[in-house]
């Protein structure tokens, strides 16, 4: 049962990733792609937690910690580039 639910969660996350990828490829403007990128990094945090769960290794969460705290930097860099504040 738990196994099934976990696969369902993984499937949902994967589909979400594909939707975001669609927006990333289609654009149309760079800012749209940045939003897709942002969503993908947040999805990655959940994916890391899921991987840690599946492998049974709590230490993997440190990677999620790094992403949770640093992923917004990339978005801010691009936002500042777009408004010419770099």
């Amino acid at each position, binding site marked *: 049962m738990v196994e099934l639910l976990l696969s369902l969660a993984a499937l949902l996350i994967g589909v979400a990733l594909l939707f975001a990828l669609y927006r990333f490829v289609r654009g149309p403007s760079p800012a749209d792609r940045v939003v897709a990128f942002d969503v993908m990094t947040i999805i990655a945090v959940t994916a890391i937690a899921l991987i840690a769960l599946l*492998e*049974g*290794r709590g*230490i*993997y969460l440190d990677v999620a910690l790094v992403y949770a705290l640093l992923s917004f930097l990339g978005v801010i860099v691009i936002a500042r580039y777009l408004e010419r504040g770099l």
Partner: protein
Amino acid sequence: MDALSPLAVHAAMATGFLLILLGFYGVLTQRNILRMVVAFTLSTTGVNLVIIAIGYTLRRTAPILDEAVPLAEASARIIDPLPQALVLTAIVIGLGITALMLAYVYKIYQVRRTLDIGKLSELKW
């Protein structure tokens, strides 16, 4: 708990190889230097991925001995740590190299006002 099948390792490795090829293609065909740098970083990532995929050993886990992997079982449970150490180094150096390349791109643009590789022809013979 949930094991990775050989198929996945092969897929990851193929992706790595594909990334290397795509990066090389980009480096060889692009005319804009900045785009060449982008392609170069792409192939760096590909190389790293291939090395990590080679280092993966089936049904084993990361080389960190905590409560999930006690010391006594270490040699039966963990994967080869050496490629990881290698790639870790490569990624950090990769950032240094990227920074260096970008500094040169910046300098070239400052002096020549162009990024087109075709117009930078002093070294041609």
